[in-house]
């Protein structure tokens, strides 16, 4: 079975992970381990979980995303979950899902600002 690949990019000290649109449970679990290993490998201090491609966030996927954020926090990395689609946010709320205490952002740009304090240095992303 072909797993949807995940993209991981490091920008400054932040690891940016793009979640696949519709992964199976095994891929979601494997992704969690991979992300944590890369946190260590790249000595990242921040983690952005980009879920803007995610079309269906069910309870298993949401729990794994929230857990990954908690685990990264235990490793000393701040995590921002970015880019939840409106339809996914509506559905997740009705389903009763929360993402725990993880920080969230509208998009990856703002998530990166939060983690690198660029936002405090003059909102350089605003054009």
């Amino acid at each position, binding site marked *: 079975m072909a797993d949807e690949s995940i993209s991981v990019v490091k920008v400054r000290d932040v690891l940016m992970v793009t979640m696949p649109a519709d992964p*199976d449970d095994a891929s979601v679990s494997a992704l969690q381990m991979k992300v944590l290993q890369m946190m260590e490998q790249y000595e990242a201090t921040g983690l952005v979980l980009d879920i803007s491609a995610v079309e*269906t966030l069910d*309870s*298993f996927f949401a729990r794994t995303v929230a857990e990954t954020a908690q685990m990264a926090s235990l490793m000393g990395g701040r995590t921002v979950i970015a880019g939840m689609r409106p339809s996914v946010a509506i559905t997740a709320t009705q*389903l009763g*899902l929360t993402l725990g205490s993880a920080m969230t952002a509208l998009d990856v740009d703002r998530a990166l600002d939060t983690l690198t304090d660029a936002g405090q240095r003059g909102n350089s992303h605003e054009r």
Partner: protein
Amino acid sequence: MRASGAIAMNAERAGEVRIHSESDIVATRRTVRTAATQLGFGLTDVTRIVTAASELARNIFLYAGSGIMRWEALDTGGRIGIELTFEDRGPGITDIEQAMEAGYTSGGGLGMGLPGAKRLMDEFEIASEIGKGTIVTAKKWHRRLGDSTS
């Protein structure tokens, strides 16, 4: 594509996915997404229906091991909808009322599969017999005829 009060002539009316493995949860989501979209549901309703289907398919995989998901187009006097049926020959649910309580789980899940799926759908029924199996039937209707924006 907008629903115009009737299901398109060339649209499929029913389908099924056999659930045997974890990857069949993904197959269920894809089949239901395609079905709900072609029936004219808007993106948010499609997301609700697909998410409910994902929870119910996972329940079958976790608790019964295998089963089947069937979908059917509903078209009753102007109202268009979709009916999802999840059937398994698993152990059955001992206490349906308890299983419908948020947070209750007997199998290591989150305990929001059944109550969550019910909240996302318009109609929801469970029939279960110990040792025989479980049938969950869930329906979603278009909010308004021809409205595909919600």
